[in-house]
């Protein structure tokens, strides 16, 4: 698909992405493109800014008396979380983003909702440079997405959306042509997801390939 056409498709999704209401599947598709496209990321930032401004229009209301006392009593029982180093935060958030990409629906719970906001910070923190996303291709059609994060550790996550059922062996082919078998991904009801940390620098991965007995080959190119 030409880039402009894909941009048009993703722009349609951006309001829902900015408001954190996109379904898991469209979010995965959107993220795969946003990781690579600076223009669409800027659009997401701008729309998010408008949404943030809208929330500020709501009239203020004083809560019932004693509210602050009750809140402070609740806080005493929960210690704040320690500051996480940016790299770890990005990695952690990306793992969560990957979980979302697997098709979890957004109303599952508060943690999931927090992630919806987090991917914005992830994309802006990593500025897309440490994050690669690519389509899994099966006979020229999309069969899901691969996300690769360059960090310590680097990791890779795949979300298969439309492929024959079975167990696929997953391998990385380096830019030097060397092959690294990294594990297996099981597809049921046409979908599956799997992730792992990888020792190879993401930059030196040429492509991800999935093979199985009596199963078609699925490939995602990470080059470029």
């Amino acid at each position, binding site marked *: 698909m030409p880039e402009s056409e894909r941009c048009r498709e993703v722009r349609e999704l951006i*309001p829902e992405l900015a408001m954190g209401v996109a379904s898991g599947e469209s979010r995965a598709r959107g993220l795969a493109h946003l990781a690579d496209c600076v223009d669409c990321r800027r659009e997401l930032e701008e729309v998010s800014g408008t949404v943030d401004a809208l929330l500020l229009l709501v*009239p203020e209301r004083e809560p019932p008396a004693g509210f602050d006392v009750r*809140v402070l009593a*609740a*806080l005493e029982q929960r210690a704040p979380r320690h500051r996480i180093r940016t790299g770890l935060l990005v990695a952690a958030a990306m793992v969560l983003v990957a979980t979302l990409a697997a098709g979890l629906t957004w109303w599952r719970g508060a943690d999931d*909702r927090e992630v919806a906001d987090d991917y914005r910070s992830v994309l802006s923190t990593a500025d897309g440079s440490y994050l690669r996303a690519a389509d899994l291709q099966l006979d020229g059609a999309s069969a899901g997405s691969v996300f690769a994060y360059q960090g310590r550790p680097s990791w890779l996550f795949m979300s298969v959306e439309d492929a024959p059922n079975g167990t696929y062996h997953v391998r990385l082919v380096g830019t030097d042509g060397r092959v690294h078998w990294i594990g297996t991904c099981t597809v049921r009801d046409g979908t599956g997801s799997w992730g792992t940390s990888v020792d190879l620098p993401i930059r030196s991965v040429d492509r991800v390939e999935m093979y199985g007995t009596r199963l078609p080959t699925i490939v995602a190119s990470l080059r470029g």
Partner: protein
Amino acid sequence: MAVSDESLLAAMATGDQDAAAAFVRRHQARVYGLALTVVQQPALAEDVAQDTFVKAWRHAATYDPRRGSASTWLLSITRNAAIDAIRYRHDDPMDPDLLVALLTVRDEGDTSDDTDTNLALRQALAELPSEMAAPIVLMTYFGLTAREIAARDDVPAGTVKTRVRRGLQRLRERMGVRDA
């Protein structure tokens, strides 16, 4: 003279209860106001508002001032908590046209200074046709997807997406020329 939100949040990240007290008192009306608007029930709104401050306390270290003001950060936490609450209870959202009316008229009880951006945005929202404003508020405040709004209003989902996108574009343009 007043301590900035950034400093309060930084102190909260180290477990400073006094900073938390100041932060809660400063923001409670805004947070409770949004919670009440979304869930429409005082007792539930209070739970949501409390939940919001607990989250802000626990995640104070992740607040990044480069990404937006503390109010914006706090309100997006409030919004998500409130939406989770109504989703969980399967409550119907408020009539979107009523909410638009509520947002576009400045509240008399609100004594805080309205910024130029707020004024421009209120006016822009008031001038937006209802077919654009309604889905925007349903999505922004109640977390409905384009598909859900489409089913509710009996229009194609693509139409809803286009209206939301164009509507947001108009709002953005008007916010950009707020000094005119």
